């Protein structure tokens, strides 16, 4: 039988790769379940950590920071996983044998990481409210926190995808990812925490919120672009 090959569009290849990640996740659920369980356990630890704070304590002022600490640590776990199965049987090499642009691999992986992180966040957010915030009333502006959440998750997925590509083929990869990842996302984390806190606990929404979100967007742009450019080198090494 003859094989007719028509080189697919870059977008079609992107969709194929993304679908592969989703298909795999749908079958095994290992990233989603491990991230969700881990996030839940962090919430439980928070419960112990805050158990002695008493009623005078304004949890709202801290809630943005705690939420983002949770997101960063949970995403570290997921990012580590996202490439371990690509390396397991040399799958990544198989993908690189295909005539396709290397940045498609980056975009597809970053998208799937983004989607998984977002899914976990959607589960964790109500739980977080349930455990810690039912005793107080967040400011009515709280829905705005979804903006920094979206922007922050994009940045984490973008830079995390590049870094986890690098760390999967190193020794002690779990720790190394944290060592590289946490200083790099610090500015993003900082911006997202301040934006989230301001809309939840109240404050200068015009100024602080807008500036923080702009800072986060700027960080996303620079980092995702740089990761995209450098990805070819990292993945082919």
């Amino acid at each position, binding site marked *: 039988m003859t094989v007719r*090959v028509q080189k697919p569009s870059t977008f*079609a290849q992107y969709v*194929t790769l993304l679908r592969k990640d989703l298909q795999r996740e749908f079958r095994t659920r290992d990233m989603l379940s491990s991230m969700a369980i881990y996030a839940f356990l962090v919430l439980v630890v928070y419960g112990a950590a805050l158990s002695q704070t008493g009623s005078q304590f304004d949890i709202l002022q801290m809630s943005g920071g705690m939420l983002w600490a949770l997101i960063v640590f949970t995403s570290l776990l997921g990012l580590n996983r996202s490439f371990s199965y690509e390396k397991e049987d040399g799958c990544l090499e198989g993908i690189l044998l295909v*005539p396709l642009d290397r940045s498609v691999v980056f975009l597809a992986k970053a998208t799937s990481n983004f989607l998984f992180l977002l899914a976990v966040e959607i589960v964790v957010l109500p739980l977080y409210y349930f455990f810690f915030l039912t005793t107080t009333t967040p400011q009515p502006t709280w829905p705005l926190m979804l903006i920094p959440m979206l922007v922050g998750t994009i940045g984490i997925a973008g830079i995390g995808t590049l870094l986890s590509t690098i760390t999967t083929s190193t020794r002690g990869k779990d720790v190394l990812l944290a060592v590289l990842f946490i200083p790099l996302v610090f500015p993003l984390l900082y911006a997202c925490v301040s934006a989230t806190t301001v809309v939840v606990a109240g404050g200068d929404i015009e100024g602080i919120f807008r500036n923080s979100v702009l800072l986060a967007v700027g960080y996303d742009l620079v980092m995702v672009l740089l990761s995209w450019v450098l990805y070819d080198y990292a993945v082919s090494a």
Partner: protein
Amino acid sequence: MEAPAVQLDQVSKVFGDRYALKNVSLELPAGSFLSIFGPNGAGKTTLLRILATLARPTSGAVTVAGINLKDDADAAREQIGLISHNSMLYADLNAEQNLQLYARLYGIENAQERVDEMLDAVELSHRRLDTVRTFSRGMTQRLAIARALLHDPQVVLLDEPYSGLDPHAVEIFDSLLEAVRENRTFVMVSHDLRKGFEACSHALVLARGTKVAFAAKEEIDYDAFAALYHETVGMGVA
């Protein structure tokens, strides 16, 4: 005469002052089967990775299926299939999903038919909906062959494909190779001197990154070859 299927012209791979390959040149006519021999660290795998476009040579020109890898690596990739000791299959997807994935990536138009055909060829049609994780080593390797040949490549690269296979699986593997051998060029890296020599039409011996010997099989018999191998390779390495 047809253009050579694989052509290396003064190919070197250096990092720092360490040569993985040093000025290797050869021409391989279409339809032939090249076996590459050499001790560990001789540059066999490096050479294969260069042919597979997974690594770039530091200097020299590489042509695969008439396409210079430097000019158009993507066009060459369409003509290259690689079977290695890694299966390159997603253990958590089933056989059909794995092949479908690669069929889509390569852009095979009649994807479903082709996947069915390849599953038939490697006798895995009955396991098509089972995840690869449940497969035995031999079955995984068969599926890996199907994956590598899915896009009908002209040049097939084999990187120690026998490692981890039991004798029965080796037999099946050999007969499969025999079945697809027509009109294709093969390049194989193997540790097994006898097995590699039996299969090949041309033999290349590498030691410390340099070409020690390259000959067509008609010119030499196994015993003479083995003697030559041990003589030349034994010298430089031990």
